[in-house]
């Protein structure tokens, strides 16, 4: 990371520390913390990190943006920062200016496909769209005759069936019933729904890795405080080894996510090697979320299973994030097909390509 990365990440860290204290949020039943937090993030230009200045964004680099997501993952915060960043990025692919306010993207699952009709309206259904009910706008990829389009849609023109994910964050079904977008442009050549899903997978990988870092910190701290059988539980070898495994899973997630983010930030073409980076990040971070969350809960015992304790803010979110933009099973099948199609002797050259 360069110093510039650190400044952006430090800004994000400071905002979360000041306005999104996990204990405070956990006890706040009416969500009064959300508006000031969002305002501060907006004032710092973070939601539009990936939008170039000519599209009314902050023009922060891809790498800096990923470092913000890692901070957001560590904070385990329920505001659509990642989603708005992703939407801004998507719109910028077609030089569409980003409006102010919360945004999200659709589709968010490889099972759903949106169609662009001949008259420029959009039809289809997108399930599991994060924060759709809070979003003012939805950035969309739709396919149609002549290729994919990117569109900015006013969320109020869609029919939204609200739902909740594992961590009680909004995960909604959005119906586009021949919706007329605010703006619609052709996607750049080669850009389609898959490109959005890959980027979404990368975003979630960063957040999961960040959440795992916090789980590890909580687990280590708690084990140094909690006394059982007349000693700190951190002194028991079984607990030490469990936390060492959690450190291993956290490391794997960090390495996979930061490698993929770095590869995308370098502007490399979307070839098999870049696909491997993104797919592997989502697969490995999701696997780490499962193993890591289980260990963190095991170390904290019953207290970690309460609403009262903040642990669930990270464990449930990391587990929920596995499902967005293609689950690990989805990406594993896609990656497996790619590896098989390339053939056995082309596997190692793919793995060793950078």
């Amino acid at each position, binding site marked *: *990371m360069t110093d510039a990365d650190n400044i952006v990440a430090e800004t994000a860290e400071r905002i979360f520390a000041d306005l999104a204290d996990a204990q405070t949020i956990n006890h706040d039943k009416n969500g009064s913390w959300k508006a000031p937090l969002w305002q501060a993030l907006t004032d710092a230009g973070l939601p539009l990190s990936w939008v170039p200045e000519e599209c009314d964004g902050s023009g922060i680099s891809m790498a800096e943006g990923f470092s913000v997501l890692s901070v957001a993952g560590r904070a385990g915060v329920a505001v659509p920062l990642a989603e708005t960043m992703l939407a801004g990025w998507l719109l910028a692919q077609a030089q569409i200016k980003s409006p102010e306010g919360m945004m999200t993207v659709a589709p968010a699952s490889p099972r759903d496909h949106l169609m662009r009709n001949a008259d420029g309206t959009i039809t289809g259904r997108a399930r599991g769209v994060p924060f759709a009910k809070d979003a003012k706008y939805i950035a969309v990829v739709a396919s149609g005759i002549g290729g994919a389009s990117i569109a900015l849609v006013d969320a109020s023109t869609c029919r939204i069936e609200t739902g909740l994910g594992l961590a009680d964050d909004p995960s909604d079904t959005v119906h586009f019933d021949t919706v007329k977008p605010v703006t619609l442009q052709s996607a750049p050549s080669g850009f389609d729904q898959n490109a959005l899903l890959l980027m979404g997978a990368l975003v979630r990988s960063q957040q999961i890795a960040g959440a795992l870092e916090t789980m590890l910190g909580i687990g280590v701290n708690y084990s140094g405080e909690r006394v059982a059988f007349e000693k700190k539980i951190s002194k028991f070898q079984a607990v030490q080894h469990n936390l060492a495994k959690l450190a291993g899973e956290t490391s794997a997630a960090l*390495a996979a996510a930061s490698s993929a983010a770095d590869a995308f930030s370098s502007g490399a073409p979307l070839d098999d090697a870049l696909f*491997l980076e993104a797919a592997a990040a989502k697969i490995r971070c999701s696997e780490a979320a499962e193993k890591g969350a289980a260990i963190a809960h095991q170390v904290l015992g019953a207290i970690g299973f309460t609403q009262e304790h903040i642990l669930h803010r990270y464990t449930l979110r990391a587990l929920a994030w596995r499902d967005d933009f293609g689950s690990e099973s989805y990406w*594993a099948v896609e990656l497996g*097909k790619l590896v098989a199609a390339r053939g056995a002797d082309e596997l190692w050259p793919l793995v060793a390509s950078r």
Partner: protein
Amino acid sequence: MTAALRFDPIRLPPECEQLRKEVRAFLAEEIAAGTFDPHKPQREDSDNPEFSKRVGERGWLGMTWPKKYGGHERSFLERYVVTEEMRVANAPVRRFFVADRQSGPVLLKYAPEHIKMDILPRICRGEVCFSIGMSEPNSGSDLFAAKTKATKTDGGWLINGSKIWTTSAHMADYMIAIFRTSAPTKENRRHGLTQFLVNMKTPGITVNPIAQITGQYEFNEVVFTDHFVPDDHMLGEIDSAWKQATSELAYERSGPERFLETYYVLTELVRAVGPKPDTRSAEGIGRLVAQLHTMRRMSVSVAGMLQAGKEPVVEASIVKDIGTIWEQQLPHRVRELAAFVDDNASNHATLDEMLGFAIKTAPKLTIQGGTTEVLRGIIARGLGLR
């Protein structure tokens, strides 16, 4: 945050790509000439002095060492490329691997100049084989309980006792071993062991091969009876081997050999399922490849940190912990995924044979060079738990 784990996204520099091509071309020539069969990993242990010399001639031994000792002053990342390409090809690296990875760097750091000038160039030429004398019949993971004794005598030391599970001792020219020179102290139970260079071709050493469950004879019992080691063969500070051991570990623990040992079964699985796998096979292969990719990124990251002069001991232990468990489980996962592969697949017999060997190899992978339990202890210490 309590623990700041770092795995920076290190990329192999451009000079590595040319090197990789050269290594692949060299290995292809060796395979074509019949030096080794990449589909017979069980032969990887067989001794091949001529191959070692040819690797040395290419400049691929002692790659990171100073030129005055025969080295090539290249980067750890370049060495990384050579190591992983050799490993993936199942090349017969046994004769030079330990010397190049571990023993040479110890000599560089602790041996007197005339010994460095004598031995290091020979390692670089692929002429000498090293073994490591750590475990004893009554001390394995508990390294600092070693009892084999070095007693002071005129001009040197007399060694009595035995080492065990010593890989390659039967073919080694030298061993770097720890021997007891003083009793441990109350304050420090690790005190009292000293590192020595042992010339295996001198009197007072008996090497007894031990058969492994794979049918191979990689490791040995080595018995010392009044074996004489000259004074100038003491490495580093007396009674202080424990201080010297820790920084070596990062080199030993994080390389590609820590997750690629059974890689060949994955390649063969991909061959067996063919270009259009069913969903079950595709998902299984996809997950394994994602895990492999992640481990390689972690391992390359540690190599990059070593190159930058850092000592990522905890990160290196994490790579070995995760990597060895993965390579241990890999043949079992491949076996499951291959359960419905057509018996007529062209490589069915090869896959079966490889799986048999890999499943037998698997148990040792989480024992050699630091057990899973020892590694997790080191990681826990790094987390501040101990």
